[in-house]
């Protein structure tokens, strides 16, 4: 039996996921998009049809892959679960903690599987750091420093990233990757303190934020994120120190391929994606993982509960940036 996949959304992540699914033996049955001018070329490329709505595609699919703005995750997941479809959903799990709880409960109740696309765990540089820390090679983590800074998403129409009510801005949408990674390394967070440009000046042309985390283990985390760089700059950094050593990595210093060309124009992606030349890109790796775990009934390497824990940190960071006060976790609301 061939698994039939419905990709919901034809934006940058819908396009990326579609490319990932093409590396599986699942069938992409359709692309759901309200704007068919954008969806049709993608559908043609992957040999699928364009559907006008989630409702329309549900009878024709086994798996729903949600690549839609964050606030739509909850209702679409509930709808898919009610129709007994498995769900692969872009990060973050939802816009609110309750969204996440509802999604987990609905999928459990319906007996379908829910997977949140926490791609950072599938980036080999992050996995390499994690595996060395987990193996105890630098001792117990003491400080964790992470950077993920890029430019403001460039879409000229329907730029939902710029609507912080929908996206949460970089403190939620972008830095969720690093909260998840930090939690993966050091366990539960006790306190969160955050500052952001947007919380101070909503009309600023760019956004930039820093989050200070204290883990229950005693470790200290510092996470920097932003949409303030000039395109196409995208920088990431990892530094983990421990009692017995240190691991460091910077995207600036490890680019294996650099071209400085006299081009007439440089096409810049609407949303920056941090990609390094690899045999298999992490966005494909995560879809293959999801698919393999699904068809072989194996556990996922990231649970929805872990995705929800990262969201909890993100929401605390948003609250702290707004109030100017540290937030103590857990705060389940």
């Amino acid at each position, binding site marked *: 039996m061939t698994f039939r996949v419905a990709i919901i959304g034809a934006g940058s992540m819908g396009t990326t996921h579609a490319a990932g699914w093409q590396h599986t033996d699942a069938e992409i049955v359709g692309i759901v998009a309200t704007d068919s001018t954008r969806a049709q070329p993608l559908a043609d490329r992957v040999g699928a049809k364009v559907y006008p709505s989630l409702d329309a595609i549900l009878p024709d699919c086994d798996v729903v892959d949600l690549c839609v703005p964050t606030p739509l995750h909850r209702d679409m997941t509930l709808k898919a679960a009610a129709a007994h479809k498995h769900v692969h959903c872009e990060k973050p799990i939802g816009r609110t903690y309750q969204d996440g709880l509802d999604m987990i409960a609905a999928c459990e109740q319906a007996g379908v599987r829910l997977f949140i696309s926490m791609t950072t765990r599938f980036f080999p540089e992050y996995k390499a750091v994690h595996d060395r820390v987990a193996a105890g090679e630098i001792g117990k983590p003491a400080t964790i420093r992470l950077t993920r800074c890029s430019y403001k998403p460039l879409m000229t129409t329907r730029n939902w990233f710029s609507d912080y009510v929908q996206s949460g801005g970089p403190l939620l949408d972008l830095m969720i990757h690093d909260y998840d990674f930090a939690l993966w390394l050091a366990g539960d967070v006790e306190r969160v303190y955050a500052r952001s440009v947007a919380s101070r000046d909503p009309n600023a042309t760019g956004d*930039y934020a820093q989050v200070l985390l204290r883990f229950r283990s005693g470790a200290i985390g510092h996470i920097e994120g932003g949409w303030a760089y000039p395109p196409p700059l995208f920088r990431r950094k990892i530094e983990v*120190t421990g009692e017995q050593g240190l691991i460091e990595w910077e995207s600036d210093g490890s680019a294996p391929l650099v071209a400085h060309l006299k081009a007439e124009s440089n096409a810049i992606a609407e949303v920056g994606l941090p990609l390094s030349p690899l045999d298999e890109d992490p966005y494909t790796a995560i879809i293959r993982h999801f698919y393999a775990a699904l068809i072989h009934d194996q556990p996922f390497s990231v649970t929805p509960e872990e995705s929800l824990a990262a969201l909890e940190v993100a929401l605390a960071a948003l609250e702290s940036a707004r109030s100017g006060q540290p937030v103590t976790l857990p705060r389940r609301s």
Partner: protein
Amino acid sequence: MRIALLSFAHVHTETYIACLRTIPDVEIIGAADDDAERGRSMTAKVGLRYSPSYEALLAEKPDGVVICCENTRHRELIERALAAGVPYILCEKPLATTMEDGQAIVKVVEAAHAHLMIAFPLRFSAPMRDARQMIVSGKLGKLYGCNTTNHGQNPTRIRSWFTDKRLSGGGAVMDHTVHMVDALRWITGSEIVELYAEAGNLFPQSGIEIDTAGTLMFTFANGAFVGLDCSWSRPTIYPTWGDFKIDFVGERGLITVDAFAQQITTYRQSLGRPTGDFWGSDTDQGMINEFAASIREGRAPSVTAYDGLKATEAAVAAYLSAETHQVVKMPL
């Protein structure tokens, strides 16, 4: 001009002596140390006259003194130098480890109509100076924030008093906060209005109970917020002693500065680890040159006791915040 050296406690003392010796009109008249054994062995090592007491040395009326004693003893030695009529003091950072001591020093320096320069060599770093020029000239537009690190190794192997709180006043947070806070006050021309910090002894060594790790976040009056990792987190096998880096993020993008990026990397078969060997301009020499120039020209040095006090204030606020888990409003 005649310069005297008070105490060899600090790791930088030998460097400062070497810097002073490059200046043609500077004569180092001698050195004293309350630790007689350290004083004797160090003066013998560097080839200076050893004076048996601070009093005897100060009685020789030096034009300036360089104070390199332990942090919590700065106030006492500054007061003794001023009482002896010394007009110029270069004091190792931090100026003080408490607001009470820091404020008392500023007051007594003013009352004596003397000048106290605090040792913030990063003000004399060529990359920092150029970064400041870019920020001041508005190239970045409105400054949103800075992500900064001043990492180091645990200094206890070189000078054990660094991890003795009675003498150092604190660990990594005291040691490194003052450098970055001073650099950023100088670059932004703004003062800190609130500060939050997490700190702890996360790189424990037996018998030592002091903060070895810390990360601060503080906000300037101009709205820019700063993250500062001041941890002694570099392992002994790390290629360098540490770092001093600032990423400035603002309206028009990103400016990064790394004060010690100008290094060659050397791999010695014999050493078993690579080393980064700095080839940039000598910041300590620039600082010592300014101290000597201020004496020569009879003017105030470009870094003052007040600058020292404001940096101390941030370190004090960081300990307060780390203890209470509250945001600390500044000035204290």
